[in-house]
């Protein structure tokens, strides 16, 4: 198949409605907590009310006598159950400090929400009622919530490692020794900025839920979980509990969103499995929302120091970045790797010489562990370079778009080998930016702004832009090896043509809202020349789809979708041998189109793949050496990341008296290469943009100095509603990726990666006339008003 989208009769590229929807729209879909599991015991977890405390004693005597209570366990009771501590799969440096972390705390709690005891009871209400009757005596210790204070080691959180510092990871690239320092010395312009990536709560609408169903006599166990990563969870459950891996089956039923927060191995999953085995009965747990805010990972949490050096024309000559990463109390599955995922992107979409100096020091705090949240490291990096570019433009007194145009990597430079050694596959930044500018009517908009933002004007117009690169499609296994990641980045697919010519696609991806069933059927239909309705997509059950690395990092299409195309190729290759045998010709004399093999030059000599599938099933007359059945498995290990890109523009009006920001217009022009289903692509952009916009304007996990999460439910944490966000104008350019046969790139995180900086640049732009040059997220009325007052200096 070619990588252009101008073919006729193509399934790929159609706005096909989702086959997932009827079940979800009628209540037929089953999420984990919807599963009927007779005889299940209910788990509830007692959580620490202290951010940092020693556990002096735990008295469960009263709780044990409460109605319905079956058993109560403390961390010490269960300690011998664990074959290994909870997993961190990404030891980013050989000397990284990783304190042992168990599903229930032993002597000490390290964040509000840390598990202290587990109750098993015959109903959910009985299990929760019993929590109140457990008497724990704590010796409170100093909470550590400030990253710079944490680095001082004044209060050590994990005594066993003797420091709050987990690791320092460096990426220094210099053409010649001292290139970065020299560039800064000789720069015509420099900017030096400090940004804070506030902690965010992922807030997937479905809280987590788990059910473990044992077979007491066979030893097998089935773990149902609201997870993005059933395959990773299976391996990790086996390792952590010392269960032979082939006895663990993990199923992710319908999953209500993840955004990275379900890309993890959680205490409650391990507790359910351990206790189900101990009691020989199913054990289930469902998370309440206020529990979710503490017990499910948080996102972001970085302090960024960013310096840019530029020559007299504004051409970037060096970038220097220092990060402090907030790991929270423990390292979860990929916690330490999140800053690294952004480490290569602090020069954004710009043509930078070999003068790049990145260093990240990550530190433990007494807050909920952080981990991957939509974009994971890349929104942070994009924010830093793009907000700093606007700062540079202000300093130079040039238009921010003009400054970017002077720095964009040019279309003809692709594939472009970057300072980091990574190759950007394809791109045309100027084309995407021009399209966005045209939607915004940029020149006239700037004129309108000049007219509106005069001295004394109360409502100020602001225009912000971002041009971004998303490094996604995680990931080439060899690159992951160089970053010390504990697994590969491949994806598996099996394509099976059934005797009646219906097709099963088995994928290792694990969707939770992305519409894989629809899109994967489209890929197989296109390749095999059959209607998409004839294709079923099987996923998210390790007994049905045993091989896979799941869904995160905008990898599903660029890795998993390409694996399906590869498996289809193998099916076609095998079918060709059978067709040649039947038509009595050489395999290379056959061409395959629209689901039929035809002898070249003899259009009457043809056989459809349906007939070959049946022949392969009966096996009555197969060529020698060809096995019965028409099925192939293919594992795709990508040659490169995929590099979607685009330009976003946001137009805001800021009320300078109240600090309120109104988003008037949001334009997203994205390029994810060829699109399988544009309907789904647009949906991903809409949702992604709003999640980034929410970071810019609304959301923040706020801790007080004692380490209490003050935004611990959906009444206090401001997830925007429909009335808080604008309609999104989406448009696209199409620059196929040359590194995979479908020409596709990822799109799941792009919206989020491009939007926070776009909105913040717009807000700061609105206030430039008032002297505001920097503003922390979220740009809430309070923060905006305070920034205006500070800039006005009491005028």
């Amino acid at each position, binding site marked *: 198949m070619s990588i252009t989208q101008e073919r006729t009769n193509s399934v790929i590229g159609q706005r096909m409605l989702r086959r997932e929807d009827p079940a979800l*729209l009628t*209540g037929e879909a089953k999420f984990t907590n919807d599963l009927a599991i007779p005889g299940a015991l209910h788990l509830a977890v007692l959580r620490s009310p202290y951010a940092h405390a020693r556990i002096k004693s735990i008295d469960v005597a009263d709780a044990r006598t409460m109605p319905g209570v079956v058993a109560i366990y403390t961390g010490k009771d269960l300690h011998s159950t664990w074959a290994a501590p909870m997993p961190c799969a990404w030891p980013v440096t050989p000397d990284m400090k990783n304190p042992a972390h168990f599903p229930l705390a032993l002597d000490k709690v390290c964040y509000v929400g840390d598990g202290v005891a587990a109750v098993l009871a015959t109903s959910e209400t009985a299990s929760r009622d019993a929590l109140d009757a457990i008497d724990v005596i704590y010796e409170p210790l100093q909470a550590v919530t400030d990253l710079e204070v944490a680095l001082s080691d004044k209060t050590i959180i994990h005594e066993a490692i003797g420091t709050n510092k987990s690791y320092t990871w460096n990426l220094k690239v210099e053409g010649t020794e001292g290139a970065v320092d020299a560039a800064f010395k000789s720069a015509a312009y420099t900017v030096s900025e400090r940004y804070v990536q506030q902690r965010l709560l992922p807030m997937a609408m479905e809280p987590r839920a788990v059910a473990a169903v044992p077979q007491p006599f066979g030893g097998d166990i089935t773990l149902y979980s609201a997870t993005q990563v059933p395959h990773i969870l299976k391996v990790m459950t086996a390792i952590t509990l010392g269960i032979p891996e082939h006895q663990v089956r993990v199923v992710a039923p*319908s999953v209500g969103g993840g955004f990275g927060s379900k890309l993890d191995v959680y205490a409650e999953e391990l507790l359910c499995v351990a206790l189900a085995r101990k009691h020989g009965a199913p054990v289930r747990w469902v998370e309440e929302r206020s529990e979710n805010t503490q017990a499910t990972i948080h996102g972001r949490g970085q302090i960024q120091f960013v310096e840019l050096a530029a020559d007299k024309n504004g051409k970037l000559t060096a970038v220097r970045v220092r990060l402090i990463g907030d790991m929270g109390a423990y390292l979860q599955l990929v916690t330490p790797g999140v800053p690294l995922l952004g480490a290569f992107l602090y020069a954004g979409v710009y043509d930078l010489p070999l003068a790049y100096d990145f260093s990240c020091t990550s530190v433990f705090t007494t807050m909920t562990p952080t981990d991957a949240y939509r974009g994971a490291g890349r929104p942070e990096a994009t924010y830093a370079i793009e907000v700093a570019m606007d700062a540079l433009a202000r300093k130079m007194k040039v238009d921010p778009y003009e400054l970017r145009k002077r720095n964009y990597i040019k279309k003809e430079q692709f594939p472009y080998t970057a300072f980091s050694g990574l190759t950007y596959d394809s791109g045309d930044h100027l084309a995407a930016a021009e399209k966005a500018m045209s939607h915004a009517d940029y020149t006239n908009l700037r004129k309108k702004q000049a007219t509106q933002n005069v001295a004394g004007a109360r409502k100020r117009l602001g225009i912000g832009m971002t041009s971004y690169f998303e490094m996604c499609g995680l990931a080439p296994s060899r690159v992951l090896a160089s970053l010390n990641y504990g697994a590969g980045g491949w994806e598996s697919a099996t394509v099976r043509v059934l005797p009646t010519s219906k097709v099963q696609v088995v994928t290792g991806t694990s969707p939770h809202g992305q519409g894989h069933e629809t899109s994967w059927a489209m890929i197989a239909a296109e390749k095999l020349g059959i209607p998409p309705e004839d294709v079923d997509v099987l996923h998210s059950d390790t007994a049905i789809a045993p091989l896979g690395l799941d869904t995160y990092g905008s990898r599903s299409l660029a890795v998993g979708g390409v694996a399906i195309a590869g498996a289809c190729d193998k099916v076609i290759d095998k079918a060709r041998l059978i067709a040649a045998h039947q038509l009595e010709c050489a395999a290379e004399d056959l061409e395959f189109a629209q689901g039929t093999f035809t002898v070249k030059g003899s259009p009457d000599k043809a056989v459809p793949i349906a007939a070959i599938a049946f022949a392969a099933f009966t096996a009555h007359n197969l060529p020698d050496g060809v096995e019965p059945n028409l099925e192939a498995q293919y594992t795709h290990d990508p040659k490169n990341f995929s590099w979607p890109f685009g330009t976003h523009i946001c137009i805001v009006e800021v009320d300078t008296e109240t600090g309120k920001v109104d988003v008037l217009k949001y334009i997203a022009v994205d390029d994810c290469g060829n699109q399988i289903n544009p309907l789904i692509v647009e949906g991903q952009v809409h949702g992604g943009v709003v999640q980034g916009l929410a970071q810019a304007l609304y959301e923040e996990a706020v801790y007080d100095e004692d380490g209490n999460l003050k935004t611990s439910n959906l009444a206090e944490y401001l997830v925007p509603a429909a009335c808080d966000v604008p309609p999104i104008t989406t448009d696209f350019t199409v620059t196929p990726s040359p590194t995979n046969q479908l020409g596709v790139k990822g799109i799941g995180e792009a919206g989020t990666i491009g939007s926070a900086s776009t909105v913040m640049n717009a807000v700061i732009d609105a206030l430039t006339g008032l002297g505001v040059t920097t503003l922390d997220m979220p740009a809430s009325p309070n923060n905006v008003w305070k920034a205006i007052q500070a800039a006005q200096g009491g005028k």
Partner: protein
Amino acid sequence: MQVSITINGSTQTHDVEPRTLLVHYIREHAQLTGTNIGCDTSSCGACTIHLDGEAAKSCTILAAQADGGKVTTIEGLSRNGEMHPMQKAFMENHGLQCGYCTPGMVMAAIGLLNENPKPTDEEVRLGLEGNLCRCTGYHNIVKSVLAAANK
């Protein structure tokens, strides 16, 4: 205590604890799991149903308060194997992704059109203020509701 509620046309009676919320009655006693729970502060709207013809968050009502009432849940919308026009509009406009907020969102949207059959974009956004979605950015939800209104 005994609580009788007519759910999707069928009257059922269950013995429940007095503290039982309507959403738990629907999910656990009536075993209709299409109505979802997304929070514990009545903020998210995932549990929106219709009680006596009006959209309501079923976590804000005790089952006992609904005794003798008529409830429609997401399972009760389709007729003769056909989805309700609002369900169809959500499908045709890609108004859902993970689908967890969807049952509540659809019930709230139907309630909105019952009160205001021809809303503007802004009225839809304000009318759905009590229902949170984390996937769609609301863009296609608003489009779905407007499409249903124009049918």
